[in-house]
Protein backbone atom coordinates (compact mmCIF):
# COMPACT_ATOMS: atom_id res chain seq x y z
CA UNK A 1 0.00 0.00 0.00
CA UNK A 2 2.79 2.37 0.88
CA UNK A 3 4.50 1.59 -2.39
CA UNK A 4 1.49 3.08 -4.20
CA UNK A 5 1.98 6.33 -2.29
CA UNK A 6 5.63 6.47 -3.29
CA UNK A 7 4.58 5.95 -6.89
CA UNK A 8 2.16 8.84 -6.57
CA UNK A 9 4.76 11.24 -5.28
CA UNK A 10 6.44 13.79 -7.48
CA UNK A 11 9.81 15.15 -6.40
CA UNK A 12 10.89 18.67 -7.25
CA UNK A 13 14.52 19.57 -6.60
CA UNK A 14 14.96 23.33 -6.42
CA UNK A 15 18.30 23.92 -8.10
CA UNK A 16 17.83 27.47 -9.28
CA UNK A 17 19.41 29.55 -6.51
CA UNK A 18 22.29 31.84 -7.37
CA UNK A 19 24.54 30.71 -4.51
CA UNK A 20 25.93 34.21 -4.18
CA UNK A 21 27.69 33.48 -0.89
CA UNK A 22 29.75 30.78 -2.64
CA UNK A 23 31.06 33.28 -5.18
CA UNK A 24 33.48 32.96 -7.04
CA UNK A 25 32.88 29.18 -7.09
CA UNK A 26 29.40 29.98 -8.46
CA UNK A 27 30.62 32.49 -11.02
CA UNK A 28 30.27 30.00 -13.88
CA UNK A 29 28.01 27.33 -12.36
CA UNK A 30 24.89 26.89 -10.26
CA UNK A 31 25.52 26.04 -6.60
CA UNK A 32 24.27 22.43 -6.94
CA UNK A 33 26.95 21.91 -9.61
CA UNK A 34 29.85 23.09 -7.43
CA UNK A 35 32.37 20.23 -7.07
CA UNK A 36 32.59 18.61 -3.62
CA UNK A 37 34.78 15.94 -2.07
CA UNK A 38 37.01 15.53 -5.12
CA UNK A 39 34.69 13.40 -7.22
CA UNK A 40 31.22 14.78 -6.54
CA UNK A 41 28.99 17.74 -7.23
CA UNK A 42 26.83 19.11 -4.41
CA UNK A 43 23.57 17.88 -6.00
CA UNK A 44 24.88 14.28 -6.03
CA UNK A 45 24.06 13.92 -2.33
CA UNK A 46 20.40 14.82 -2.81
CA UNK A 47 20.12 12.67 -5.95
CA UNK A 48 21.79 9.74 -4.16
CA UNK A 49 19.25 10.12 -1.36
CA UNK A 50 16.48 9.96 -3.96
CA UNK A 51 17.87 6.76 -5.49
CA UNK A 52 18.47 5.18 -2.07
CA UNK A 53 14.91 6.12 -1.00
CA UNK A 54 13.36 4.54 -4.12
CA UNK A 55 12.05 7.89 -5.30
CA UNK A 56 10.74 7.42 -8.83
CA UNK A 57 9.78 10.73 -10.43
CA UNK A 58 12.16 13.64 -10.22
CA UNK A 59 12.14 17.08 -11.78
CA UNK A 60 15.17 19.28 -11.28
CA UNK A 61 14.14 22.95 -11.49
CA UNK A 62 17.09 24.86 -12.87
CA UNK A 63 17.61 28.51 -13.62
CA UNK A 64 20.90 30.42 -13.53
CA UNK A 65 24.07 29.13 -15.16
CA UNK A 66 22.64 25.67 -15.49
CA UNK A 67 24.84 24.29 -18.26
CA UNK A 68 27.29 22.27 -16.17
CA UNK A 69 24.45 21.08 -13.91
CA UNK A 70 22.37 19.93 -16.90
CA UNK A 71 25.35 18.16 -18.38
CA UNK A 72 26.17 16.40 -15.12
CA UNK A 73 22.58 15.18 -14.66
CA UNK A 74 22.17 14.04 -18.25
CA UNK A 75 25.50 12.21 -18.38
CA UNK A 76 25.49 10.81 -14.87
CA UNK A 77 21.98 10.45 -13.55
CA UNK A 78 19.62 9.89 -16.47
CA UNK A 79 20.70 6.30 -16.88
CA UNK A 80 20.31 5.64 -13.14
CA UNK A 81 16.76 6.98 -12.96
CA UNK A 82 15.15 6.74 -16.35
CA UNK A 83 13.07 3.68 -16.95
CA UNK A 84 9.91 4.77 -18.76
CA UNK A 85 8.37 1.31 -18.56
CA UNK A 86 8.44 1.29 -14.76
CA UNK A 87 7.43 4.94 -14.43
CA UNK A 88 10.81 6.21 -13.25
CA UNK A 89 12.43 9.33 -14.58
CA UNK A 90 14.53 12.41 -13.97
CA UNK A 91 13.83 15.52 -16.03
CA UNK A 92 15.46 18.92 -16.06
CA UNK A 93 12.94 21.73 -15.99
CA UNK A 94 14.14 25.25 -16.78
CA UNK A 95 11.60 28.11 -16.31
CA UNK A 96 8.87 27.66 -18.95
CA UNK A 97 7.54 31.22 -18.60
CA UNK A 98 4.07 29.85 -19.14
CA UNK A 99 2.55 32.47 -16.88
CA UNK A 100 4.81 35.48 -16.94
CA UNK A 101 8.06 36.63 -18.37
CA UNK A 102 9.97 36.54 -15.11
CA UNK A 103 12.32 33.92 -13.73
CA UNK A 104 11.56 32.36 -10.37
CA UNK A 105 10.96 35.07 -7.77
CA UNK A 106 11.28 32.59 -4.90
CA UNK A 107 10.74 28.94 -4.04
CA UNK A 108 6.93 29.30 -3.91
CA UNK A 109 6.96 31.08 -7.27
CA UNK A 110 9.08 28.25 -8.70
CA UNK A 111 6.27 25.85 -7.77
CA UNK A 112 3.55 28.24 -9.00
CA UNK A 113 5.25 28.61 -12.37
CA UNK A 114 5.24 24.81 -12.70
CA UNK A 115 1.63 24.14 -11.75
CA UNK A 116 1.14 22.94 -15.31
CA UNK A 117 3.51 20.07 -14.53
CA UNK A 118 1.61 19.23 -11.34
CA UNK A 119 -1.67 19.32 -13.29
CA UNK A 120 -0.26 16.98 -15.92
CA UNK A 121 1.19 14.54 -13.39
CA UNK A 122 -1.55 14.82 -10.73
CA UNK A 123 0.58 13.36 -7.92
CA UNK A 124 -0.98 12.84 -4.48
CA UNK A 125 2.12 14.19 -2.76
CA UNK A 126 4.93 16.53 -3.72
CA UNK A 127 8.37 16.18 -2.17
CA UNK A 128 10.32 19.42 -2.39
CA UNK A 129 14.09 19.29 -1.95
CA UNK A 130 16.93 21.76 -2.07
CA UNK A 131 19.67 20.80 -4.51
CA UNK A 132 22.48 22.23 -2.44
CA UNK A 133 22.77 20.43 0.90
CA UNK A 134 25.10 17.64 2.04
CA UNK A 135 23.32 14.94 4.09
CA UNK A 136 21.91 11.43 3.96
CA UNK A 137 18.21 10.95 4.41
CA UNK A 138 15.52 8.44 3.55
CA UNK A 139 12.72 10.49 2.00
CA UNK A 140 10.38 7.48 1.89
CA UNK A 141 10.26 7.46 5.69
CA UNK A 142 9.38 11.14 5.75
CA UNK A 143 6.63 10.53 3.21
CA UNK A 144 5.22 7.69 5.29
CA UNK A 145 5.25 9.97 8.33
CA UNK A 146 3.39 12.67 6.38
CA UNK A 147 0.74 10.23 5.14
CA UNK A 148 0.19 8.72 8.59
CA UNK A 149 -0.44 12.15 10.09
CA UNK A 150 -2.68 13.27 7.23
CA UNK A 151 -0.62 16.43 7.19
CA UNK A 152 -1.04 19.28 4.73
CA UNK A 153 2.70 19.80 4.85
CA UNK A 154 5.56 18.14 6.70
CA UNK A 155 8.82 20.01 7.24
CA UNK A 156 12.01 18.07 7.91
CA UNK A 157 13.75 19.59 10.93
CA UNK A 158 17.09 19.09 12.64
CA UNK A 159 18.27 20.26 16.06
CA UNK A 160 20.95 22.94 15.64
CA UNK A 161 22.83 25.18 18.02
CA UNK A 162 20.91 28.34 18.91
CA UNK A 163 23.64 30.47 17.33
CA UNK A 164 22.85 29.08 13.86
CA UNK A 165 19.15 29.94 14.06
CA UNK A 166 19.46 33.37 12.44
CA UNK A 167 20.25 31.67 9.11
CA UNK A 168 17.41 29.14 9.31
CA UNK A 169 13.69 28.67 9.80
CA UNK A 170 12.87 27.66 13.37
CA UNK A 171 9.86 25.50 14.33
CA UNK A 172 8.09 25.18 17.68
CA UNK A 173 6.35 21.85 18.04
CA UNK A 174 4.07 20.09 20.52
CA UNK A 175 4.55 16.53 21.77
CA UNK A 176 3.02 15.22 18.52
CA UNK A 177 5.52 17.27 16.48
CA UNK A 178 2.77 19.51 15.14
CA UNK A 179 4.24 22.95 14.41
CA UNK A 180 2.55 25.78 16.32
CA UNK A 181 4.94 28.55 15.53
CA UNK A 182 7.47 29.13 12.79
CA UNK A 183 10.14 31.84 12.73
CA UNK A 184 12.03 32.41 9.51
CA UNK A 185 15.63 33.51 10.16
CA UNK A 186 14.99 35.00 13.64
CA UNK A 187 17.52 37.79 14.30
CA UNK A 188 17.30 37.38 18.06
CA UNK A 189 15.74 35.13 20.71
CA UNK A 190 15.03 32.09 18.56
CA UNK A 191 12.53 29.67 20.04
CA UNK A 192 14.42 26.74 21.54
CA UNK A 193 13.61 23.09 22.13
CA UNK A 194 11.63 22.47 25.35
CA UNK A 195 14.18 19.93 26.62
CA UNK A 196 17.27 21.80 25.40
CA UNK A 197 17.44 25.61 25.78
CA UNK A 198 20.63 25.79 23.67
CA UNK A 199 19.17 24.15 20.58
CA UNK A 200 16.55 25.04 17.98
CA UNK A 201 14.51 22.83 15.71
CA UNK A 202 15.54 24.14 12.29
CA UNK A 203 13.87 23.57 8.94
CA UNK A 204 16.13 21.82 6.43
CA UNK A 205 14.21 23.24 3.45
CA UNK A 206 12.78 19.78 2.76
CA UNK A 207 9.00 19.53 2.49
CA UNK A 208 6.33 16.96 1.74
CA UNK A 209 3.09 18.61 0.66
CA UNK A 210 -0.26 17.08 -0.03
CA UNK A 211 -0.61 18.32 -3.58
CA UNK A 212 -3.90 20.17 -3.22
CA UNK A 213 -2.67 22.11 -0.19
CA UNK A 214 0.49 23.07 -2.09
CA UNK A 215 -1.35 24.24 -5.19
CA UNK A 216 -3.88 26.25 -3.19
CA UNK A 217 -1.18 27.95 -1.18
CA UNK A 218 1.16 28.87 -4.01
CA UNK A 219 -1.77 30.00 -6.21
CA UNK A 220 -2.94 32.30 -3.44
CA UNK A 221 0.58 33.52 -2.71
CA UNK A 222 1.11 34.40 -6.37
CA UNK A 223 -1.66 37.01 -6.05
CA UNK A 224 -0.06 38.73 -3.06
CA UNK A 225 2.84 41.03 -2.37
CA UNK A 226 5.19 38.47 -0.94
CA UNK A 227 8.73 37.18 -1.19
CA UNK A 228 7.07 34.10 -2.76
CA UNK A 229 9.15 31.88 -0.53
CA UNK A 230 8.03 28.57 0.99
CA UNK A 231 9.93 29.10 4.25
CA UNK A 232 9.27 32.80 4.66
CA UNK A 233 5.65 33.00 3.44
CA UNK A 234 3.84 29.71 2.83
CA UNK A 235 4.78 27.72 5.94
CA UNK A 236 4.22 30.61 8.41
CA UNK A 237 0.86 31.36 6.74
CA UNK A 238 -0.20 27.71 7.04
CA UNK A 239 0.84 27.61 10.70
CA UNK A 240 -1.07 30.86 11.40
CA UNK A 241 -4.18 29.50 9.72
CA UNK A 242 -3.99 26.26 11.70
CA UNK A 243 -3.32 23.97 8.75
CA UNK A 244 -1.88 20.54 9.58
CA UNK A 245 1.81 21.41 9.61
CA UNK A 246 4.14 18.78 11.08
CA UNK A 247 7.83 18.61 11.75
CA UNK A 248 9.66 15.44 10.75
CA UNK A 249 12.67 14.88 13.00
CA UNK A 250 15.60 14.30 10.67
CA UNK A 251 16.77 10.70 10.81
CA UNK A 252 20.35 10.61 9.69
CA UNK A 253 21.35 7.70 7.46
CA UNK A 254 24.97 8.71 8.02
CA UNK A 255 24.82 6.78 11.33
CA UNK A 256 27.24 8.88 13.35
CA UNK A 257 26.81 10.27 16.82
CA UNK A 258 25.95 13.75 15.66
CA UNK A 259 23.44 14.28 12.85
CA UNK A 260 25.15 15.50 9.69
CA UNK A 261 23.43 18.13 7.58
CA UNK A 262 25.35 20.95 5.95
CA UNK A 263 24.02 23.81 3.87
CA UNK A 264 27.58 24.63 2.66
CA UNK A 265 26.19 28.08 1.92
CA UNK A 266 29.46 29.91 2.52
CA UNK A 267 32.99 29.34 1.28
CA UNK A 268 34.21 28.70 4.82
CA UNK A 269 31.44 26.15 5.46
CA UNK A 270 32.18 24.54 2.11
CA UNK A 271 35.89 24.38 2.88
CA UNK A 272 35.36 22.82 6.32
CA UNK A 273 32.95 20.19 4.97
CA UNK A 274 35.50 19.19 2.32
CA UNK A 275 38.38 19.09 4.77
CA UNK A 276 36.37 16.83 7.08
CA UNK A 277 36.58 14.12 4.42
CA UNK A 278 40.35 13.86 4.86
CA UNK A 279 40.05 12.90 8.54
CA UNK A 280 40.79 9.36 9.72
CA UNK A 281 37.10 8.94 10.54
CA UNK A 282 35.27 11.75 8.76
CA UNK A 283 31.97 13.02 10.14
CA UNK A 284 30.45 12.33 6.75
CA UNK A 285 30.83 8.73 5.66
CA UNK A 286 31.35 8.16 1.94
CA UNK A 287 32.22 4.50 2.45
CA UNK A 288 28.92 3.07 3.72
CA UNK A 289 27.82 0.53 1.11
CA UNK A 290 24.27 0.54 2.43
CA UNK A 291 23.90 4.21 1.43
CA UNK A 292 26.05 4.70 -1.67
CA UNK A 293 26.78 8.22 -2.90
CA UNK A 294 26.95 8.23 -6.68
CA UNK A 295 28.28 10.69 -9.18
CA UNK A 296 29.38 10.91 -12.77
CA UNK A 297 32.85 11.09 -14.22
CA UNK A 298 34.36 10.07 -17.47
CA UNK A 299 36.91 7.36 -16.91
CA UNK A 300 40.44 8.25 -15.95
CA UNK A 301 43.55 6.18 -15.34
CA UNK A 302 44.37 5.37 -11.70
CA UNK A 303 46.01 8.02 -9.52
CA UNK A 304 49.79 7.79 -9.73
CA UNK A 305 52.54 8.79 -7.32
CA UNK A 306 56.06 9.00 -8.72
CA UNK A 307 59.60 9.89 -7.61
CA UNK A 308 60.80 8.47 -4.35
CA UNK A 309 64.10 10.04 -3.40
CA UNK A 310 64.89 9.26 0.21
CA UNK A 311 64.15 12.07 2.65
CA UNK A 312 67.30 14.20 3.07
CA UNK A 313 68.49 16.45 5.81
CA UNK A 314 68.47 19.87 4.22
CA UNK A 315 67.86 20.18 0.49
CA UNK A 316 64.36 19.52 -0.89
CA UNK A 317 63.88 16.01 -2.21
CA UNK A 318 61.96 14.85 -5.23
CA UNK A 319 59.30 12.73 -3.68
CA UNK A 320 55.70 12.26 -4.90
CA UNK A 321 53.43 11.74 -1.91
CA UNK A 322 50.03 12.59 -0.47
CA UNK A 323 49.24 12.33 3.25
CA UNK A 324 45.88 12.72 5.01
CA UNK A 325 44.32 13.42 1.63
CA UNK A 326 41.69 12.34 -0.86
CA UNK A 327 43.16 11.74 -4.32
CA UNK A 328 40.86 11.16 -7.31
CA UNK A 329 41.57 9.11 -10.45
CA UNK A 330 43.70 10.64 -13.17
CA UNK A 331 45.75 12.60 -10.65
CA UNK A 332 49.53 12.46 -10.95
CA UNK A 333 51.59 13.35 -7.89
CA UNK A 334 54.92 13.75 -9.55
CA UNK A 335 57.73 14.56 -7.15
CA UNK A 336 55.75 16.96 -4.94
CA UNK A 337 54.09 16.70 -1.52
CA UNK A 338 50.40 17.00 -0.70
CA UNK A 339 49.10 17.13 2.86
CA UNK A 340 45.58 17.31 4.23
CA UNK A 341 43.98 18.14 0.88
CA UNK A 342 41.16 17.13 -1.45
CA UNK A 343 42.26 16.46 -5.03
CA UNK A 344 39.82 16.12 -7.94
CA UNK A 345 40.49 14.04 -11.06
CA UNK A 346 43.40 14.93 -13.34
CA UNK A 347 45.19 17.12 -10.84
CA UNK A 348 48.90 17.40 -11.55
CA UNK A 349 51.38 18.03 -8.73
CA UNK A 350 54.88 18.81 -10.01
CA UNK A 351 58.30 18.31 -8.46
CA UNK A 352 59.40 19.97 -5.24
CA UNK A 353 56.07 21.71 -4.68
CA UNK A 354 54.18 21.65 -1.41
CA UNK A 355 50.39 21.68 -1.12
CA UNK A 356 48.72 21.78 2.29
CA UNK A 357 45.08 22.19 3.44
CA UNK A 358 43.86 22.72 -0.12
CA UNK A 359 40.96 21.83 -2.37
CA UNK A 360 42.28 21.34 -5.90
CA UNK A 361 39.56 20.96 -8.51
CA UNK A 362 39.64 19.03 -11.74
CA UNK A 363 42.65 19.55 -14.00
CA UNK A 364 44.50 21.91 -11.64
CA UNK A 365 48.23 21.85 -12.05
CA UNK A 366 50.72 23.05 -9.43
CA UNK A 367 54.02 24.13 -10.95
CA UNK A 368 57.46 23.09 -9.75
CA UNK A 369 58.55 24.47 -6.40
CA UNK A 370 55.21 26.24 -5.90
CA UNK A 371 53.85 26.37 -2.35
CA UNK A 372 50.12 26.54 -1.76
CA UNK A 373 48.26 26.32 1.52
CA UNK A 374 44.69 26.81 2.75
CA UNK A 375 43.41 27.50 -0.75
CA UNK A 376 40.63 26.43 -3.08
CA UNK A 377 41.94 26.28 -6.64
CA UNK A 378 39.10 26.13 -9.17
CA UNK A 379 38.92 23.89 -12.22
CA UNK A 380 41.77 23.98 -14.74
CA UNK A 381 43.87 26.69 -13.04
CA UNK A 382 47.62 26.31 -13.63
CA UNK A 383 49.66 27.60 -10.72
CA UNK A 384 53.03 28.65 -12.17
CA UNK A 385 56.44 27.44 -11.06
CA UNK A 386 57.61 28.85 -7.76
CA UNK A 387 54.30 30.61 -6.94
CA UNK A 388 53.39 31.23 -3.28
CA UNK A 389 49.71 31.22 -2.31
CA UNK A 390 48.35 31.30 1.22
CA UNK A 391 51.53 32.62 2.82
CA UNK A 392 51.12 36.38 2.47
CA UNK A 393 47.58 37.50 3.30
CA UNK A 394 48.05 40.97 1.81
CA UNK A 395 49.43 39.72 -1.49
CA UNK A 396 46.66 37.11 -1.68
CA UNK A 397 43.97 39.69 -1.02
CA UNK A 398 45.30 41.84 -3.83
CA UNK A 399 44.83 39.02 -6.34
CA UNK A 400 42.18 36.65 -5.02
CA UNK A 401 39.13 36.26 -2.82
CA UNK A 402 40.16 35.61 0.81
CA UNK A 403 37.43 34.51 3.25
CA UNK A 404 36.94 35.50 6.87
CA UNK A 405 38.65 32.29 7.96
CA UNK A 406 41.57 33.05 5.63
CA UNK A 407 40.80 30.58 2.83
CA UNK A 408 42.18 31.82 -0.50
CA UNK A 409 40.00 31.17 -3.56
CA UNK A 410 41.69 31.15 -6.95
CA UNK A 411 38.86 31.27 -9.53
CA UNK A 412 38.55 29.55 -12.89
CA UNK A 413 40.46 31.09 -15.74
CA UNK A 414 42.79 33.04 -13.42
CA UNK A 415 45.79 34.05 -15.48
CA UNK A 416 49.19 34.29 -13.84
CA UNK A 417 51.76 36.70 -15.16
Amino acid at each position, binding site marked *: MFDAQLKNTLTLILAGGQGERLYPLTRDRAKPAVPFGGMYRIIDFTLSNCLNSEIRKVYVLTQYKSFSLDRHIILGWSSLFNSPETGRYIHILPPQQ*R*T*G*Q*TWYQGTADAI*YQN*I*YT*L*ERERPDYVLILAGDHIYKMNYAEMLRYHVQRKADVTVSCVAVDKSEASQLGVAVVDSENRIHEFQEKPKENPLTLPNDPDSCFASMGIYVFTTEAL*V*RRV*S*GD*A*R*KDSAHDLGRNIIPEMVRENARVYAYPFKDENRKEVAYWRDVGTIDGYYEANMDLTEVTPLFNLYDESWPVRTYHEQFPPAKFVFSEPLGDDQPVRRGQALDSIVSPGAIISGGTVEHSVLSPQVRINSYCYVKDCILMEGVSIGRRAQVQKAIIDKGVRIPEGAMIGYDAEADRARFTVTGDGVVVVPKGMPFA
Partner: protein
Amino acid sequence: MAKLLVVDDDKNLRLLYEQELGDEGHEVALASSGREALELLKNSRPDLIILDISMPGMDGIEALGKILAKDKTMPVILNTAYSTYKDNFMTWSADAYVVKSGDLTELKAKIRDVLKTRGLPT
Protein backbone atom coordinates in the same frame (compact mmCIF):
# COMPACT_ATOMS: atom_id res chain seq x y z
CA MET B 1 -20.99 50.19 -9.86
CA ALA B 2 -17.80 48.81 -11.32
CA LYS B 3 -16.02 48.47 -14.64
CA LEU B 4 -16.32 44.85 -15.81
CA LEU B 5 -14.72 43.06 -18.74
CA VAL B 6 -16.64 40.04 -20.07
CA VAL B 7 -14.59 37.63 -22.17
CA ASP B 8 -16.64 35.01 -24.03
CA ASP B 9 -16.64 33.61 -27.56
CA ASP B 10 -20.47 33.29 -27.59
CA LYS B 11 -21.89 36.50 -29.05
CA ASN B 12 -25.39 36.02 -27.64
CA LEU B 13 -23.99 35.41 -24.18
CA ARG B 14 -21.87 38.57 -24.38
CA LEU B 15 -24.98 40.58 -25.25
CA LEU B 16 -26.95 38.97 -22.42
CA TYR B 17 -24.18 39.74 -19.91
CA GLU B 18 -23.85 43.29 -21.20
CA GLN B 19 -27.57 43.83 -20.69
CA GLU B 20 -27.97 42.08 -17.34
CA LEU B 21 -24.82 43.37 -15.70
CA GLY B 22 -25.48 46.80 -17.17
CA ASP B 23 -28.88 46.73 -15.45
CA GLU B 24 -27.02 46.12 -12.16
CA GLY B 25 -25.36 49.46 -12.75
CA HIS B 26 -21.98 48.16 -14.02
CA GLU B 27 -20.07 49.47 -16.98
CA VAL B 28 -19.48 46.45 -19.21
CA ALA B 29 -16.73 46.02 -21.83
CA LEU B 30 -16.67 42.94 -24.09
CA ALA B 31 -14.00 40.75 -25.66
CA SER B 32 -14.57 37.65 -27.78
CA SER B 33 -11.29 35.84 -27.07
CA GLY B 34 -8.39 35.65 -24.65
CA ARG B 35 -6.19 37.46 -27.13
CA GLU B 36 -8.66 40.29 -27.61
CA ALA B 37 -8.97 40.64 -23.83
CA LEU B 38 -5.19 40.98 -23.48
CA GLU B 39 -5.21 43.64 -26.23
CA LEU B 40 -7.91 45.59 -24.38
CA LEU B 41 -5.99 45.32 -21.10
CA LYS B 42 -3.03 47.13 -22.67
CA ASN B 43 -5.02 50.38 -22.57
CA SER B 44 -7.59 49.93 -19.84
CA ARG B 45 -7.95 48.42 -16.40
CA PRO B 46 -11.35 46.98 -15.49
CA ASP B 47 -12.25 46.39 -11.83
CA LEU B 48 -13.02 42.74 -12.54
CA ILE B 49 -12.81 40.25 -15.43
CA ILE B 50 -15.38 37.55 -16.15
CA LEU B 51 -13.51 34.96 -18.16
CA ASP B 52 -14.86 32.04 -20.18
CA ILE B 53 -12.52 29.01 -20.40
CA SER B 54 -13.39 27.09 -23.55
CA MET B 55 -12.68 29.51 -26.38
CA PRO B 56 -11.01 29.07 -29.76
CA GLY B 57 -7.39 30.18 -29.95
CA MET B 58 -6.13 31.26 -26.53
CA ASP B 59 -8.39 29.67 -23.93
CA GLY B 60 -9.34 31.14 -20.58
CA ILE B 61 -6.75 29.15 -18.61
CA GLU B 62 -3.87 30.50 -20.67
CA ALA B 63 -5.39 34.00 -20.65
CA LEU B 64 -5.74 33.83 -16.82
CA GLY B 65 -2.01 33.12 -16.45
CA LYS B 66 -1.12 36.02 -18.73
CA ILE B 67 -3.57 38.44 -17.11
CA LEU B 68 -2.21 37.68 -13.62
CA ALA B 69 1.38 37.86 -14.82
CA LYS B 70 0.71 41.42 -15.99
CA ASP B 71 -1.25 42.39 -12.88
CA LYS B 72 -1.43 39.88 -10.06
CA THR B 73 -4.07 41.93 -8.24
CA MET B 74 -6.58 41.86 -11.13
CA PRO B 75 -9.79 40.15 -9.90
CA VAL B 76 -10.87 37.35 -12.23
CA ILE B 77 -13.98 35.15 -12.10
CA LEU B 78 -13.84 32.07 -14.30
CA ASN B 79 -17.22 31.45 -15.91
CA THR B 80 -17.62 28.26 -17.86
CA ALA B 81 -20.25 25.75 -18.93
CA TYR B 82 -18.11 22.94 -17.52
CA SER B 83 -17.56 22.05 -13.88
CA THR B 84 -14.62 19.77 -14.75
CA TYR B 85 -12.14 22.64 -15.00
CA LYS B 86 -12.73 23.28 -11.32
CA ASP B 87 -10.31 20.41 -10.54
CA ASN B 88 -7.69 21.78 -12.92
CA PHE B 89 -4.86 23.24 -10.82
CA MET B 90 -4.38 25.97 -13.42
CA THR B 91 -7.74 27.51 -12.47
CA TRP B 92 -7.00 27.75 -8.75
CA SER B 93 -5.41 31.16 -8.95
CA ALA B 94 -8.72 32.73 -10.05
CA ASP B 95 -10.79 34.62 -7.46
CA ALA B 96 -13.87 32.49 -8.12
CA TYR B 97 -15.25 29.80 -10.38
CA VAL B 98 -18.88 29.98 -11.51
CA VAL B 99 -20.56 27.39 -13.72
CA LYS B 100 -22.67 29.05 -16.43
CA SER B 101 -26.40 28.95 -16.03
CA GLY B 102 -29.38 30.66 -17.67
CA ASP B 103 -29.91 32.43 -14.39
CA LEU B 104 -27.16 34.92 -13.54
CA THR B 105 -27.96 35.14 -9.82
CA GLU B 106 -24.88 33.19 -8.71
CA LEU B 107 -22.56 35.12 -11.01
CA LYS B 108 -23.94 38.44 -9.82
CA ALA B 109 -23.51 37.38 -6.19
CA LYS B 110 -19.89 36.33 -6.83
CA ILE B 111 -19.19 39.64 -8.57
CA ARG B 112 -20.46 41.45 -5.47
CA ASP B 113 -18.37 39.18 -3.18
CA VAL B 114 -15.15 39.68 -5.10
CA LEU B 115 -15.60 43.45 -5.43
CA LYS B 116 -16.38 43.67 -1.73
CA THR B 117 -13.31 41.63 -0.76
CA ARG B 118 -11.22 44.01 -2.84
CA GLY B 119 -12.83 47.04 -1.25
CA LEU B 120 -14.35 48.15 -4.57
CA PRO B 121 -17.83 49.69 -4.96
CA THR B 122 -20.41 47.01 -5.71
